[in-house]
């Protein structure tokens, strides 16, 4: 009997020990996510329905934040921002896809070095890299010097929407290339051989085999360029003219500069959150989340 009793006691002890181990290991992650991700996001949702105040927000229910978002003035801002994100994504895919494709054709030994080369610019902070672009695209900068030397017309790029687009593509191209490369690299070369063996000619194996198989990668790239593009306000600040604003800049101004309208900034953020969730949901249908990171 005594043996049985101590046995049961030990089992309970073991269960407690296991539970404690679980809390010690997974607890910090859970705690951190709840306290610094979930709770702040709840703040965003709640504040978006509150009243504007001197220090950003005041107690009381109000839909004013959302009403401003859907006003004609900011409707145009949102439309313009989405267009910029769309253009950025299109350009990143257009330049990134062939680039990723070329990388898969590189000698095996070089590939990991080539991937490293894409990542390395991140090691220099992006503010200074974007700032350096200003030197390049200045009216009297090296780009125009080169154009003059080639006997071409100079272009005025600095402080235009074109400059913002350039900055966005520059910043986001590496994020577009990596998922594309990962999905291209996974393709078994024998599939291409099988396709040509089955009578697919010239570019047909590419269109019928490679492109469909890399669609998850294309979608992942799209998400990784489209969504961040809406938020990269400092690129708009540094490259743009500052006359008409993009959504990221408008949000920033509600918090860091003169405007101090938290409910409005939160309501605008909710739009970004909804957009993100919708795109992620679509993505999880065709690809796995692991491939995104």
């Amino acid at each position, binding site marked *: 009997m005594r043996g049985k009793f101590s046995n049961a006691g030990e089992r309970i002890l073991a269960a407690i020990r296991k539970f404690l181990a679980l809390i010690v*290991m997974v607890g910090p992650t859970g705690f951190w996510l709840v306290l610094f991700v979930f709770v702040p996001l709840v703040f965003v949702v709640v504040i978006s329905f509150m009243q504007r105040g001197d220090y950003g927000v005041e107690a009381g229910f109000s839909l004013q934040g959302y009403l401003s978002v859907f006003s004609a003035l900011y409707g145009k801002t949102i439309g313009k921002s989405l267009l910029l994100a769309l253009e950025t994504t299109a350009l990143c895919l257009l330049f990134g896809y062939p680039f990723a494709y070329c990388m898969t054709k590189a000698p095996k030994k070089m590939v990991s070095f080539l991937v490293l080369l894409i990542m390395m610019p991140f090691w220099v902070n992006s503010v200074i*890299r974007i700032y350096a672009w200003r*030197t390049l695209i200045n009216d009297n900068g090296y780009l125009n010097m080169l154009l003059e030397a080639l006997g071409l017309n100079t272009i005025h790029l600095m402080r235009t929407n074109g400059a913002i687009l350039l900055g966005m593509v520059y910043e986001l191209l590496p994020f577009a290339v990596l998922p594309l490369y990962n999905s291209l690299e996974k393709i078994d070369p024998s599939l291409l051989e099988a396709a040509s063996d089955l009578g697919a000619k010239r570019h047909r194996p590419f269109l019928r085999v490679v492109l469909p198989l890399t669609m998850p990668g294309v979608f992942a790239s799209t998400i990784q360029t489209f969504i961040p593009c809406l938020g990269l306000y400092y690129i708009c600040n540094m490259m743009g003219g500052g006359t008409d604003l993009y959504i990221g800049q408008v949000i920033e101004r509600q918090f860091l500069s003169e405007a101090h309208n938290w409910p409005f900034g939160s309501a605008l953020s909710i739009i970004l959150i909804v957009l993100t969730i919708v795109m992620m949901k679509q993505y999880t249908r065709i690809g796995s989340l692991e491939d995104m990171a």
Partner: protein
Amino acid sequence: MADIDAKIQAKKRRNRLLFNSAAITYGSLIYLFLYLPILIVILFSFNTSRMNLTFQGFTFDWWGSMFSNRTLLESFYNSIIVAGASTILSVIIGTLGAVGMYKFEFKLKSVLSNSLYIPIAIPEIVFGISLLMFFSSLHVQTGMVTMIIAHVTFSMPFVLITVRARIAGHDRALEEAAKDLGAGESHTFFRVTLPCIMPGIISGGMLALTLSLDDVIISAFTNGPDAKTLPIKILELSRRGVPPDAYALSTLMIIGTVVIMLSSQLVQNRMLKKRGEETVSP
């Protein structure tokens, strides 16, 4: 017949040559695009002119003067402190989480697993304003601590996911073997599990370090009046013009990061090579 064959062969070879040279040219142009601004940063750190418009002449002046630019140096130290502290914290939390999720089954596992992608997917600006409102509603003065917290929040999921990917390929029989040979729980962890997942921890840590050093937006919303990181300081300076000593400091940082990253890569690859695994890039 043989003649036609030879022709086809020659055509194929010509096509391949054409493709290769086109690929190399195109690839180089893209890399040039990515590295052009960095070359400018390095070049202009030796520029005699204060204006970053054209290269006027060569000088080492800025490399000397940056050490007397107190605000710049301070923000540089802040960057190092924030990056160091947040990397260490997110490596500890993320590794514990990844190992815990591998070892145990529990109810909210899939919820937790999916939640990891929230801070990754959501635009940084949303994340930044949510933390700003959170801290100021609780009357927490933003500064170094809030910045470290914010950086841990966005880099910890990356560490966890990287380490978890490493553990996924891990053979559970290794832990059983260790216990079978007489090692208790903690010895099994420190002698077998930890060394096996170390390459994942290193690359997770390097990722966290990179993200922290490069971060602008989230730091912009969580910094304090006396606690700014280098990117934030440069962002502020950029309105009036970035002085060349910032370029010199950035160049120094480029060299520093490249050395750290490459040596960590080297360590990691040596570990993997010894175990006969494929080497990786960060």
